[in-house]
């Protein structure tokens, strides 16, 4: 097989290295060699849309759809190939040598692509969900003033996400990371005419940036300690217990995880995600539910050998599992009280991300990523369905909805499928993945995870109840009862409902790829990597926990039904739900935003202000008063003698002197460049002469 350099090799002089662990060979090998096309095609589509999009018949949508369709097909082909023969191929192309750091070798700027089970799974998620969402967005964004720009940004996001996923080195990963950040900023602020949307975009960006500091610190520590930014090299160093790395691994792992917390919106960085719902719903669906926010989980998965039990940074796991546990419960609770349907889903997303993170923290690599996989489908679906509702009702608020199942049957049915899947009811996909997480947590608790794992297991079971509860509430408030809004709701066009059905189908069956102990291809997909995972994965189906989980979910549904079933939507009825203490807490989202504003920004601002006031009041005023008193005493004396006789004379002399001198010196300021240049050269000569003489 000849070496296929790809476009990037145009930057001549770079070396092209291939690392093949499991060579698929043949056509599949070609497929893997050309995998660089996966991120490049959407990025090219972005440029093409920007350049010619507006002149195309469908205003650039066709380019975006074509690109994402290409990705979807390519990803599915790779998935099937990987299913048949597991593969793990890495390509690295040297772009430039950055130069060497003292004491270390050359740091090389590389570009490359890694094709293994993990990245293929992510391609599939991005490609397939993306394909449905792009299709849906055609209908949703129809008539928008910045229709073309929307798809350019969306395509940019897809490209960036794929750059991130395909990255075999940390620098490229950061490039992708920031590309999706930019795309997220652009898309959250898509309707920037409204100031709130603008603010939300900025908030998301800044929150992520703060967390990114952690990522950068982690990457720099790893790169400099190992001497290479290649993930493979880093993980090799981990595997051979490199002593230099061992010393800093905890901090590097923590830094990376902080970055992951930002992107995956773990507490306390979760505040940006609900606000990000200001963007168009397809954006919320693809980026802020299915793919982008899972980048953090992906990062942890990609660097998993670092975190795994026995890995160098396995102390971080406790932080990970606690962050996940806290997020999954607390954000789930907030979802209970939201009126905005997208916010409900957003907090639900936070909660589910908490599940994934917790699973990673429990060392359950497969379980966390499996939940990522299924969640992408059903949460993408839920957002799209919510978007369809919003499209029909022209409001985000559930208090303006109700009874929509009669008007929007397709949306209703698909939303219901998504909700049930999210709640984790057998046999839909959510059941399998959530159950695996519970099983893994329990497994971890009994295998050295300690109290943290046990605590989080309890939280997760509680979370399952809450999940079912708020989804039931959302379904009832939206689709049952009387219609409370204005106008006439209508079903969305077919370009929007077909993707709903497509995703609904996937949400229903996606769980069957990993039935513990029966049929587990998903586990095998993820296992095809260069570095072996020490996966704390529960081997079989934990019947007890499955039963408990299902029972809890059913209980949640029952409770929700009881509360919200019959015309639940009247305001008075819903107020029954307001628990005296908890409700305000939840409504204000645990005062996190207030905390940040008043707790972090405020304390910085406050003391400065107070200090200034204090200085002014006490120090300066005191000094001034003292001086005043002294001066009043002195002046009488001084006026007579010093001022009148001494100073006035001196001042007059000085003033006259200054005036004269100014007149003289001013002539040097001719404004003529050449005189300045002459002075410059003369000065340089004097300097050099001085240097030569005195050295």
């Amino acid at each position: 097989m000849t070496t296929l350099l790809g476009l990037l090799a145009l930057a001549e002089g770079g070396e092209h290295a291939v690392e093949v662990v499991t060579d698929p060979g043949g056509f599949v090998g070609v497929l893997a060699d050309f995998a660089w096309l996966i991120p490049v095609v959407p990025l090219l589509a972005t440029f093409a849309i920007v350049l010619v999009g507006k002149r195309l018949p469908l205003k650039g949508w066709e380019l975006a759809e074509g690109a994402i369709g290409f990705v979807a097909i390519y990803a599915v082909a790779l998935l099937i190939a990987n299913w048949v023969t597991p593969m793990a191929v890495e390509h690295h192309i040297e772009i430039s040598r950055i130069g060497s750091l003292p004491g270390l070798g050359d740091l090389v700027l590389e570009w490359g692509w890694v094709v293994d089970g993990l990245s293929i799974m992510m391609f599939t998620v991005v490609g397939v969900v993306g394909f449905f969402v792009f299709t849906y967005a055609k209908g949703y964004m129809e008539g928008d003033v910045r229709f073309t720009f929307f798809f350019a940004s969306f395509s940019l996001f897809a490209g960036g996400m794929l750059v991130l996923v395909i990255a075999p080195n940390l620098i490229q990963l950061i490039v992708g990371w920031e590309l999706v950040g930019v795309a997220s900023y652009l898309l959250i602020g898509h309707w920037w005419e409204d100031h709130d949307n603008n603010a939300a975009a900025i908030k998301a960006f800044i929150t992520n940036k703060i967390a990114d500091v952690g990522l950068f610190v982690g990457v720099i520590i790893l790169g400099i300690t190992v001497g290479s930014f290649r993930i493979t090299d880093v993980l090799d160093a981990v595997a051979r217990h490199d002593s230099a790395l061992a010393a800093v691994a905890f901090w590097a792992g923590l830094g990376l995880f902080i970055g992951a917390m930002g992107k995956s919106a773990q507490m306390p960085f979760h505040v940006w995600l609900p606000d990000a719902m200001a963007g168009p719903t397809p954006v919320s669906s693809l980026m802020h539910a299915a793919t982008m926010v899972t980048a953090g989980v992906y990062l942890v998965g990609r660097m998993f050998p670092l975190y795994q039990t026995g890995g160098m940074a396995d102390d971080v796991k406790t932080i990970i599992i606690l962050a996940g546990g806290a997020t999954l419960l607390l954000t789930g609770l907030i979802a209970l009280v939201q009126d905005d349907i997208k916010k409900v889903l957003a907090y639900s997303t936070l909660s589910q991300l908490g599940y994934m993170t917790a699973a990673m923290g429990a060392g359950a690599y497969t379980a966390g990523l499996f939940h990522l996989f299924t969640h992408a489908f059903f949460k993408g679906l839920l957002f799209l369905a919510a978007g369809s509702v919003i499209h029909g009702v022209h409001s985000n608020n559930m208090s303006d909805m109700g009874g929509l199942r009669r008007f929007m049957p397709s949306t209703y049915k698909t939303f219901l499928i998504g909700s049930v899947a999210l709640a984790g009811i057998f046999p839909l996909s959510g059941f399998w993945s959530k159950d695996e997480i519970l099983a893994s947590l329990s497994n971890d608790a009994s295998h050295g995870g300690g109290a943290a794992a046990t605590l989080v297991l309890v939280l997760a079971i509680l979370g399952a109840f809450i999940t079912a509860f708020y989804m039931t509430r959302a379904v009832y408030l939206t689709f049952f009862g009387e219609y409370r809004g204005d106008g006439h709701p209508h079903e969305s066009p077919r370009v929007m409902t077909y993707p709903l059905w497509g995703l609904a189908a996937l949400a229903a069956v996606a769980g069957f790829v990993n039935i513990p102990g029966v049929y587990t291809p998903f586990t095998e997909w993820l296992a095809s990597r260069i570095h072996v995972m020490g996966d704390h994965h529960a081997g079989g189906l934990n019947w007890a926990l499955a039963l408990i989980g299902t029972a809890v979910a059913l209980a949640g549904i029952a409770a929700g039904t009881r509360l919200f079933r019959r015309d639940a939507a009247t305001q008075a009825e819903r107020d029954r739900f307001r628990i005296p203490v908890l409700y305000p807490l939840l409504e204000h989202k645990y005062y996190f935003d207030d905390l940040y504003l008043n707790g972090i920004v405020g304390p910085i601002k406050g003391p400065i202000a107070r200090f200034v006031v204090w200085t002014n009041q006490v120090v300066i005023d005191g000094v001034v008063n003292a001086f005043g008193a002294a001066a009043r005493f002195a002046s009488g004396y001084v006026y007579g003698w010093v001022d009148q006789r001494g100073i006035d004379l001196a001042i007059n002399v000085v003033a006259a002197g200054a005036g004269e001198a100014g007149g003289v010196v001013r002539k040097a300021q001719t404004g003529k460049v050449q005189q300045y240049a002459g002075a410059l050269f003369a000065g340089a000569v004097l300097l050099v002469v001085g240097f030569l003489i005195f050295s």
Partner: protein
Amino acid sequence: MAFSDWITDARNIVFLVIALTMVGGALVVVTTRNVVHSALTLVVVLGGSAALFLMLGAEFVAWAVILVYVGAVVVLFLFGIMITRAPIGRDSVRLDHERRWPPALIALSVFVVMAWSTTLAFGSEQISGGVIRTDAIGDLLFSRYVIPFEAVSFVLLAALIGGIVLARKDPDR
């Protein structure tokens, strides 16, 4: 190294001829009373520098100087001069400042200092260099120096746009 030793090398004779031509040309450039003559004499100096580059084995740079400087930069100069005003014969307008001695003094001291310091530093070190092939330079430009290369190309693009923006007439006016 004695001058007699130095001058016996045929290459040094060639160098001397070229160098004297260049210096003479350079003096004309800064003293002539005619703008166009000044620009045309600059061509002689640049041609001389290209010849020196050939002597030093820097073939690509030599032809690049011819192509860019003589073929484009000087032509651009002449173009600019002729568009603004193209005096034929002696220019009636004063081209120099009244006082010439202070600049001459500064220039002289710059020369003395530079020549002094290079002589101090290099004495009579021989040039060892052989020909560096053009493809080697190409490889270097695109690997080790790729970032400065991109930066320079960006500068050039910016200059292009800037030049257009500055020089074009606003069609509304």
